Each structure stands twice: as C-alpha cells, then as structure tokens.
C-alpha cells in the first residue's frame, strides 16, 4: 500500500489536542494536590476525570473488536481482570521496594513496570482467546468470549495467592490522575493510528465482507488475533491503572456486569468511532453523576431511581439512533487525513 495523500493540518490538529489535554492535566494535578482553589479544583472532580480516563481506555479498546472488526465480544472485563491482578501482584509483591527510589522517579518506574506487566499478561490471554475463537463468528463468538470472562473470574476466585473470592488487598496507590490522563492520551493516539493504518483497514474490510477480504489476500485468523491481542492489552492497561487506584480488587468486580457497563458506554457513543468512545464515556459518566446530584438535592427519597433512568436512556438511544451518538463518524481532529 502506497502512502496516502496527506494534508498536514489534520495530523497537526490531532497532536495539538493531545498536547492541550496533557498541558491542562499537569497544572490541574499540581494545583489540586496543593489544595489551592478548593471550590473549583476539588478532588471529587479529579476522581471523576480519572474514572472517565480509565473508561475511555476500556471502551476505545473494545471498539477495536466490536466496532472496527465487527464482532460481538462480551469478555472485556475478563481481560481487565487479568491486567488488574497482574499489576496488583507486581506492585504489592514484586516491586514493593521501589519506595527507596526518589519519589517521582520511583512512581514512574513502578507504574511503568506494573502497567507493562499488566498489558503483557492481558495480551497473552487475549491471544489465547483469539486462537480459540477462530472457528466461530457472530453469536457463538459472543458466547465463547463471555465464557472466557467467567472462567477467568472463576479461576481467580480459586487462586489463594491472589486472595481468592475475598479479593486482593494492600495494593500501593501508584495511579494518579496525571498517569491516567497520559495513558488515555497514549491509548487514543495509538488506536487512532492503528485503525487508520493498513491494520485497521484490514479489520474494517473483514467486518464489511470477510469472504471478499480473504480473496484479497487477508489472513482472517491472523488479523482477528491481532485485534484480540491489542484490545486485550489495552483492557489490561485499564485494569492495571484501576487496581493501583482502588488499592483493592475482587474477582466479582470483573464479571459480566462490568462488561455490560463497558458495552453500554460503547454503544451509547457509537461503533467504529473513537470520538464516539470518548463521547459515550463522558456523557454516560457525567449523566449518572448529574442525576445522582440532582436527585439527592431535590428528591432524596428517589436518589436510587437514577438506576432506572440509565437503561431507559440506552433503550431510547437505540430506538432513535441505532448507531449511537457518533456511529462511524469522527470529530474532525480524529479523522484520517485523506478524509478531512
């Protein structure tokens, strides 16, 4: 494949947005840590943004499988669990001595190593799941990935060294807001470049017509396996961040309820669209928080009823906008150069 005709502005704009997010995140972290302007910069907002960042990594990586590759994978929380437990083990049992290093260097080094371990472990599991799902498509692939999610959770429940069903405690808190934002920006940048490269175009071609793609010389199994491995690695990254943010993880928090939550945000935002993944996560998280705050302010006895509103919103969106908010479309700064 020859190089695509490029127009500089789009690429430039993308890196400018990434740079802007990072440039805003650094003072935000420093000022909040210092306790300045507590009314505007309170830790609660920082916590919300951290959750949003981790969810963007999860949803965008699932979008590789469910959006670009066009499969219906139902086991993303399983990959997240592998990453979370790998990072937790590394942070709590293998690398606890990193406190001896100077503070910033020590944190960066520990986070880097634990997250690399988390991504590697999850990628390995994703590769294996990809191998097993070769023979299946559609509904059956959905079931097998779901089955793997359950098996991973069940296996962790039966391993005493990981805390079993009681959960893994005593994980050091290495994840900061800034670290999550850096990881989120990196993830979005890598995924954007991936889906616009020949890799991503191969995935889309499989989604559109697998037989035609095969006739054009695409190795279906290999392409599918690459997608599974990469998506799992990023889910593992989110898991690793999550484990070192919460400091406590249980196998049950990675079962199909978590997978469903990721799916809801993905489909709310829209398939095969990184803008959609970002928008879906932000909209869903903010909406839930807003509903909670509004209800507890005006009608505290109905505070729990927001749990009813979120599925209703999902249903209404599916009935009125089948492809989600941004299905198959991108914001201009995320669009491939040829199309902008």
């Amino acid at each position: 494949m020859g190089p695509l005709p490029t127009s500089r502005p789009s690429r430039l704009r993308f890196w400018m947005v990434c740079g802007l997010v990072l440039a805003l995140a650094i003072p935000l972290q420093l000022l909040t840590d210092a306790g300045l302007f507590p009314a505007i910069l309170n830790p609660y907002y920082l916590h919300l943004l951290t959750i949003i960042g981790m969810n963007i990594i999860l949803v965008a990586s699932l979008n590789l499988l469910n959006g670009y590759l066009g499969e219906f994978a139902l086991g993303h929380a399983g990959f997240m669990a592998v990453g979370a437990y790998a990072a937790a083990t590394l942070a709590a049992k293998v690398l606890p001595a990193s406190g001896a290093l100077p503070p910033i260097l020590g944190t960066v080094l520990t986070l880097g190593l634990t997250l690399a371990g988390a991504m590697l472990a999850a990628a390995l599991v994703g590769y294996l799941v990809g191998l097993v799902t070769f023979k299946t498509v559609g509904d059956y692939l959905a079931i097998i990935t779901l089955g793997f999610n359950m098996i991973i959770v069940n296996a962790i429940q039966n391993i005493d060294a990981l805390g079993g069903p009681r959960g893994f405690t005593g994980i050091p808190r290495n994840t900061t807001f800034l670290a999550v934002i850096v990881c989120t920006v990196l993830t979005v940048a890598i995924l954007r470049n991936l889906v616009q490269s020949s890799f991503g175009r191969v995935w889309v071609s499989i989604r559109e017509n697998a037989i035609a793609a095969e006739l054009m010389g695409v190795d279906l199994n290999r392409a599918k396996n690459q997608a599974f491995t990469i998506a799992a690695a990023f889910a593992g990254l989110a898991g690793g961040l999550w484990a070192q943010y919460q400091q406590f993880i249980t196998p049950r928090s990675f079962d199909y309820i978590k997978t469903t939550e990721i799916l809801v945000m993905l489909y709310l935002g829209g398939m095969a669209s990184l803008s959609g993944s970002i928008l879906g996560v932000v909209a869903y998280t903010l909406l839930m928080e807003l509903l909670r705050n509004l209800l507890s302010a005006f009608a505290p006895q109905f505070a729990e009823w927001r749990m009813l509103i979120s599925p209703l919103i999902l249903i209404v969106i599916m009935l009125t906008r089948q492809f989600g908010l941004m299905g198959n479309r991108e914001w201009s700064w995320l669009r491939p150069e040829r199309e902008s």
Partner: protein
Amino acid sequence: MDTVIQQLFNAAQLGAVYALIALGYSMVYGIIRLINFAHGDIFMLGGFIGLLLTTHLGWLPFYLMMPLAMLLTALAGVAIERVAYRRLRHAQRMSVVITTLGVGIFLENLVRLTVGPETRQLPARLPTAPVLWLQNTLGAFVTWDKLLIILLSLALMAILWLVINKTLVGTAMRAVADNKDVVPLMGVNLNLIIAATFAIGSALAAAGGIFYGQAYSIDPYMGIDLGWKAFIAAVIGGIGSIEGAVLGSFLLAGVEVLTVAYLSSNLKNGIAFGLLILLLLVWPSGIMGKPMLKKV
C-alpha cells in the same frame, strides 16, 4: 447409592428450571434470530409476580396462582417486545441486542426499587413431605415439592411440544422460523406470531421463576446468573432447537450438581463455562442445532 439418586433428583430439578428458561431463549432465537438478554430478567419478574400474588392473594391456591402469574408475565413479555424490540426488527442486530441488555437492567432495577433488594423465599405452597414410595424402593430422600416441580415442568414442556407441533399457531411459528419473508405472503400475521412466541416464552420463564422460588430463593439479580446459565444450556443443545434446549439444560444441571457434590462448589461456574467452550469447539452449532450455512 442413595446419595447418587438424590443428586440426580437435584440435578433434574435444576435442569427443569434451566429448561423452562432456555426454551424461551431458543424459541425467540429460532423465530427472529435475536438473543433476548432480558429473558433471564423475565424469569426473575415471573418469580416476583408469583411472590406478590402469594403474599397479597394468599387464599389463591397454587394451581391458580401459577397460571395467573404466567399470564401476567406473558403480558409483560409481549409489552416489552411491542415497545422496545418491534421497531428494531429490521435494524442492525447489535442495536437490538443492546436494547435487550437495557431492558434487562431496567427490569432488575425496577424490581429492586419497588420490592426491595433482599433475597426472599416464596411461601411454600407445595407439600414438603418426603416421597415414601421412593424412600422405600430406592432408599432416596426426595421431597414431594421436588418431584412435583420436575413433573410439572415436564408437563409444561409436553404441552409446549403439542402446541408447536400440533396446532395452527405452532405450525405458523415453525414456518416463520424457516422463512420470515415468505410466510407473511401466505396470509400469516407475522406480528401476532412473534407476540405469541414472546408470550409463551415468558409464561414458561415465569413458571421457572415460581419453581425456583419454591425450591431455592429469589432476588432481583437472579435473572443475570440463571439467565446466562439457561442461555448456555440452549447453546449447548443448539440454539433454535426446542429439544436441544431441554437436553442442554439437563446436561448442564447434571454437570453442575455433580461438580458441587463431588468436587467443589467454587469450580461450578468454571466447569460449566469450560464445558460450553469445549462443546462449541466440537459442535460449533450445538448438539441439535442446524449448522449455519454461509452464503457467498
């Protein structure tokens, strides 16, 4: 020896409940190729309607309460299909599947907020005395309610078999499953047949919910767990096949009960799902399912 027979009865009871749920999955999939992920929650709803009827209309005998609960749940199932799924019948499949997930979460939270999150037990309305005849001949301790649940479930399945194979509605259902585009041209009201499928599936699930509440206990989130298990059973048997759903249910329940009895209850889910993956690798379309043809 006697404990093996007791375990088999336990497995049959669990398998009967799985089968009552799995049949709804399989029928809906057979007719409109939709995995209705809200079906497990219909089962939960049926159990809670049974609970409300028994507590508020205590004078109602069990054999009237159950058909009434089945009827109400069937109405709920038809209403859900009408409001949430019908408009998406020609949409891309993932939007419908996501809608079913949304309906499921909605039902769970609705019951949790209105009835409460506690685990409850349906007031026992079936005799719980041991079956003396079985105790004397086989030496197995089996209570009447367990035996009745198994027998009533089998009776419902037999009725379903008759409806599908011997009545006009059943013939139309099989025809729709075979070719959804041609059948309306023959003067069959497609919407009516699909509604009937949802009604029958929901009614069976309600029966399953009531039996489950009698035998074990019910809570607003039980539909997730039981629903997935029944779904696996339907897939193992070959989704879309009625006989397959029943066979898969008893197979899965057997494996689960025996795992809990002789290995460890912690391994239950892992073994159930491992079995699922192994079976699908050997029979990619289930034991009794039709192999899917790929058209070029």
